[in-house]
């Protein structure tokens, strides 16, 4: 998956030499295809979390319903989400949220085939429901555990006429496009197109990319000279595909538009391309982070995320603040090793799953134990360090569990100290040792700051020296929580090549 994006980026550096229209067009199509693929985690991760939840609760329909309800609400990716049991002789959904599943109306053999297919792939099973009057795409996901028992399944609706709206006068108006499910331009497999006269002929470019266990094929043709900024077509394609596959791309689109305006002002063409590409990576990363923090009476909450500026690939840092009840808040900060789309997909899966388990009422150590199945360093080459803090506001208590993550810093009326949480193995690293919980009481006006290693890690330096730098900065900043985080970003985070995420929590006096 990452290879497509990297290929596109490598191409960018060579672009200044001998550009021509065909290469520009190929470039656009390649970028668009890469962006389509990067949208997939946003479909896959909620289903992956749903599948894990079903395995953990032995297919509890109520738990699944509660988890999946937000996925079918307005603006959400799906019209129908359901939970299925594997190897049932008469397969029926255990729970259906939203509209009835179209899959349920198919023959038992078809359903069994779809469900079984999702158990043999580690990615998403793509289900072709394009022959219906109201065409849909189905997505099936089974847990990657050894013998899964359940499949989380969702359907997204396509517009019946399969025509994407082209905004007249916009910078997007210069390209015709057609998007198909599968490896080629088969007319019955059309997902969406800007024109009715298909297939697209003339000077055109076609690109196929992996999409779950299927493929997407994108064909494009310019209506005029391709002079403008190379990425002009992208927000429109994301928007169009967002409509079709309902991939909740609005946030990315908005941010891309901002990034494009910024890029235009830069004189150097190559610089412009690089900036825009980096912006895509950052936009995707940001779209996977919380768009806003919860409002919790009695607590002040702030967060920062800064991508490493040198790279153009997506990083794996994340944070999450979950309001469990009026008095209990869970903070999660994590870091998937490596970069690129796979790291980012693993991050998204961990983030959604930890959220699901937190809302189920599990304690921090139990959540870490359950996340272990989602990543495997032996298989994927990635591991994740995760710190979870469960905050009891009125009791002034914090319970921590730590999977190899940098320790947090706490400041209260007794001083500013590094909390010595016992580090268990990172998630994805096999270990017989269970995760331990650690609870501490906090004093008046306490401030908790949790972060990723990008904040303090320096070459050739002891971890402890960097941690002390963070502690000292927090100890000497007496202004608002927001100022504390700004100061950390400004004065402490000096490494340009790594992501940095920080979350701060302060008890209001």
């Amino acid at each position, binding site marked *: 998956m990452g290879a497509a994006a990297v290929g596109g980026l490598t191409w960018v550096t060579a672009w200044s030499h001998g550009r021509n229209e065909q290469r520009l067009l190929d470039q656009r199509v390649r970028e668009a295809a890469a962006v389509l693929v990067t949208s997939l985690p946003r479909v896959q991760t909620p289903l992956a979390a749903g599948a894990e939840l079903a395995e953990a609760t032995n297919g509890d329909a109520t738990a699944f319903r509660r988890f999946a309800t937000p996925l079918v609400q307005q603006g959400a990716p799906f019209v129908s989400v359901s939970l299925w049991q594997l190897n049932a002789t008469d397969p029926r959904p255990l729970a259906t949220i939203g509209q009835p599943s179209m899959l349920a109306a198919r023959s038992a053999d078809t359903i069994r085939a779809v469900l079984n297919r999702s158990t043999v792939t580690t990615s998403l099973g793509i289900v072709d429901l394009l022959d219906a009057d109201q065409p849909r795409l189905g997505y099936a996901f089974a847990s990657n555990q050894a013998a899964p028992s359940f499949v989380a399944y969702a359907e997204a609706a396509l517009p019946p006429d399969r025509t994407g709206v082209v905004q007249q006068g916009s910078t997007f108006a210069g390209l015709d496009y057609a998007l198909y499910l599968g490896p080629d331009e088969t007319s019955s497999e059309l997902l969406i197109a800007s024109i009715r006269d298909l297939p697209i002929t003339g000077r055109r470019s076609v690109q196929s990319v992996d999409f779950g266990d299927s493929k997407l094929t994108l064909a494009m043709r310019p209506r005029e000279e391709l002079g403008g900024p190379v990425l002009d077509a992208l927000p429109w394609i994301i928007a169009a595909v967002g409509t079709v596959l309902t991939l909740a791309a609005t946030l990315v689109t908005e941010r891309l538009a901002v990034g494009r305006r910024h890029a235009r002002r830069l004189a150097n063409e190559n610089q412009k391309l690089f900036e825009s590409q980096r912006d895509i990576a950052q936009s995707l990363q940001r779209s996977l982070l919380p768009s806003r923090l919860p409002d919790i009476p009695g607590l002040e909450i702030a967060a920062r995320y800064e991508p490493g500026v040198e790279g153009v690939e997506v990083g794996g840092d994340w944070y999450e603040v979950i309001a469990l009840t009026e008095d209990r808040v869970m903070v999660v900060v994590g870091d998937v090793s490596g970069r690129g789309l796979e790291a980012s997909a693993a991050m998204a899966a961990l983030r959604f799953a930890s959220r699901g388990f937190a809302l189920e009422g599990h304690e921090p150590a139990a959540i870490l134990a359950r996340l272990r199945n989602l990543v495997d360093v032996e298989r994927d080459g990635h591991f994740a360090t995760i710190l979870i803090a469960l905050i009891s506001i009125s009791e002034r208590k914090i319970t921590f569990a730590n999977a190899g993550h940098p320790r947090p810093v706490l400041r209260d009326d007794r001083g500013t100290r590094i909390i010595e949480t016992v580090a268990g*193995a*990172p998630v994805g690293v096999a270990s017989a040792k269970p995760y331990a919980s650690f609870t501490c009481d906090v004093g008046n006006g306490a401030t908790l700051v949790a972060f990723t290693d990008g904040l303090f890690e320096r070459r050739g330096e002891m*971890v*402890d020296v960097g941690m002390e730098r963070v502690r000292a900065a927090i100890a000497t900043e007496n202004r608002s929580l927001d100022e504390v985080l700004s100061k950390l970003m400004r004065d402490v985070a000096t490494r340009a090549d790594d992501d940095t995420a920080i979350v701060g929590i302060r008890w209001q006096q």
Partner: protein
Amino acid sequence: MAAVDDDATSARFEPCRDDAGECVLHVAGEVDLSNAPQLRRAIESMRVANPARLVLDVRELTFMDSSGLAVLLQAAAKLDALVLRHAQSSIIRLIETTGVTSVLSVEP
């Protein structure tokens, strides 16, 4: 195998024999995202000779980020033992704070 120098970050990966005659991979310099794949290849070629145990001499390793650590942890999962010999204190603390002391053995 020849020593490999990386453009972005300076690191060397060199197989040698130690005093006891055991084949050891010398890892020197800084290992990060830019050269972690080279470390992976160097370790894989070592595993051909001995698929059960791998000793890395890391006395000259001054920095390793999570990408480098991921390579070691992935290799360790496939081996009976992965030993880091002569590790500097900054590397030992990295292993301790990341909670992987039970996976990577540190020898003086």
